Structure formats: structure tokens, C-alpha cells
């Protein structure tokens, strides 16, 4: 089906330092801050796989995988 792609957002909280870059750059706000400002998934369906979060995360803490 050539429909909308779906993605998995993997966040490694052991690495995340709560810098906020990923969700600042997320264009759809699929991710956002948790109570300690670390990355957390807000609405996985909104993820369009642009990889902005992955590009900017300085801590290898977030990965986007396309669901197959």
C-alpha cells in the first residue's frame, strides 16, 4: 500500500540529556518534553520521518525507524 508511512520513535533515556533540540526541531511536535525536559513521544502518528530530531540530537539518544 503506497499510503502514509509509519514510524517508530526510539528514545534512549539513559543517553538523553534533556537539551530539547529534538522536540524544538520536530516540525509536527510528534515528540515533546517530559517533566524533566527529556524527549518523549507525544503522538507517534504525527511523525513524518523527517529525521530532524535524529540529526540534531547530540547524544545518540533518538532514532526513527520506518515501520515495515
Amino acid at each position: 500500500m503506497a499510503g502514509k508511512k509509519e514510524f517508530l520513535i526510539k528514545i534512549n533515556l539513559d543517553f538523553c540529556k534533556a537539551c530539547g533540540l529534538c522536540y524544538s526541531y520536530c516540525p509536527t511536535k510528534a515528540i515533546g518534553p517530559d517533566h524533566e525536559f527529556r524527549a518523549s513521544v507525544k503522538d507517534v502518528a504525527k511523525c513524518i520521518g523527517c529525521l530532524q530530531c535524529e540529526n540534531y540530537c547530540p547524544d545518540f539518544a533518538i532514532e526513527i525507524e520506518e515501520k515495515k
Partner: protein
Amino acid sequence: MFDYSKYLRMDKLPHIWCYGCGNGIILKGAVRAIDKMGWDKDSVMAVSGIGCSSRATGYVDFNSLHTLHGRAIPYATGIKMSRPDLNVIVFTGDGDATAIGGNHFIHAARRNIDLTVVLFNNNIYGMTGGQYSPTTPQGYFASTAPYGHIDPSFDIVQLAMGSGATFVARSTVANPREMEKFIHEGLKNKGFSLIEVVSNCHERFGKRNKMKSPYEMIEWIRSRAVSKVKAETMEPEELEGKIITGIFRQETRPEYVEAYDSFVMQKAGGGN
């Protein structure tokens, strides 16, 4: 999905850099660029000096060497002279490479020895607490510029070109994919390659200059970045304070060790 764990010493993570520090973004770009080269990890040699950025060598699963402040390039030069088959990459900072290490930088560029230098330019001495570096912009504050900074900055791209480097490019952490591409181009060059990446240090630079968060700093960098193509259409006054990005030189000249082997060793009747 890119598998960073292939190239990283995962047991050393999280790294020691501050939250949101651009160093991590650059390290990522470098790793992706190296991946594109398809090199055997054993053939890659990562060398760094001293500074926050220079801690990068501790995280990559290559041969790695953390040297003295400013001296990464001469160490790397010796490695290349000893093992020309190794792919030698230097991770360095603006202080490391252009303050104390400035002489080594220009001489390696002059020789056109095959090193790829990825220069993390955060415009400050991060590790020692925010003293001004040779690239701190005028008018900004640093711990040793409490009244505002007066030194003119190096244009590292100009310096590398004036010294004879064969590949010279500049990008920023605000454009990770471009940076990755430039590093990849640099790695492909057989000779001295310099990729300056303008980066953010909100801890030591930003906080003193009304940019408290990594995001603010990266956006400040983005707001000043102008591509080389665009810059050519702009007036000098408009370009003040701007960061011109792009590939500034990409040319072929004999590489140093190859020249040594093909000329000196041949004449001496040595060879191997």
C-alpha cells in the same frame, strides 16, 4: 536507520559533553561520512588534541589518540609518515587548531599531507571555562573579555587556503546534512582537507551572550549562515558577521607522503 553503534564505543556513552552541545551533532555527521567511505574500521585513525571537542576520539571505535593541546596535527603527521595506508582523521577545536596549534595547522596544509581535519569551531575555549578563542566574534563577551572582545577573528577558511590546503569547506551544526556531505568530500580528498563546522557552546559562550539554550545558539548560527553562492551576490557590509558556508577549494596536488615515496625514496634507491 543509521546504526551508530557500529562505529561508537557504546560503553563510553553518554559522552561528557553538556546537554545540547554541538560536538555531538558534529561527531554524528563525521561518523556518517566515514561510513560512506566504506573503510575497514582498523584502517581508520582518529587523532585529537585537548578541549571538549577533542574528547571525540574517546567515543569512536577506531584507532584513537588523544594527544596534547594543539598537537593533534603533528602527531597525525607522524602516524601518516609511519603508516600511509591509514585513513587519518583529526578532531580538533578552534582553540586547539588555531590558537596553540595554529602553526601545525598551516604547515600540514602547506605540505598537503593526507589528513582530514574536522574543526569544531564553537568560537570559545569550552573546556577551560569560556576564555576567548581566535574565532570569538568581536563585541561578544568571554571570561577573559569581560568588557567585550576586541580581537579580530581568524577566517579559518582563508587561513587554510592561504596555507595551501587542497580541500577547504565550512558548514555549521545548523545544517547537519550539509556538514556530513562536506566531511565526506574531505575524506575523499587525497591531501590535506579542512572542514570547519561552526558549533554551539551555550554553556561557556551562549550564557555570557544572552543565548541560554542550545536551540537559541543553533538558531543564532543559522541566522548568520550564508551559502557561498549567495554570498557572492552580497555586499561586504551585508556579509559582516556572517558565516559563509560551502566548499571553497577542492583541487588535486601531489600528496606529501606519496611525493616522498615516489621521489625521495626512489632517488635514494630505498622504496619498499
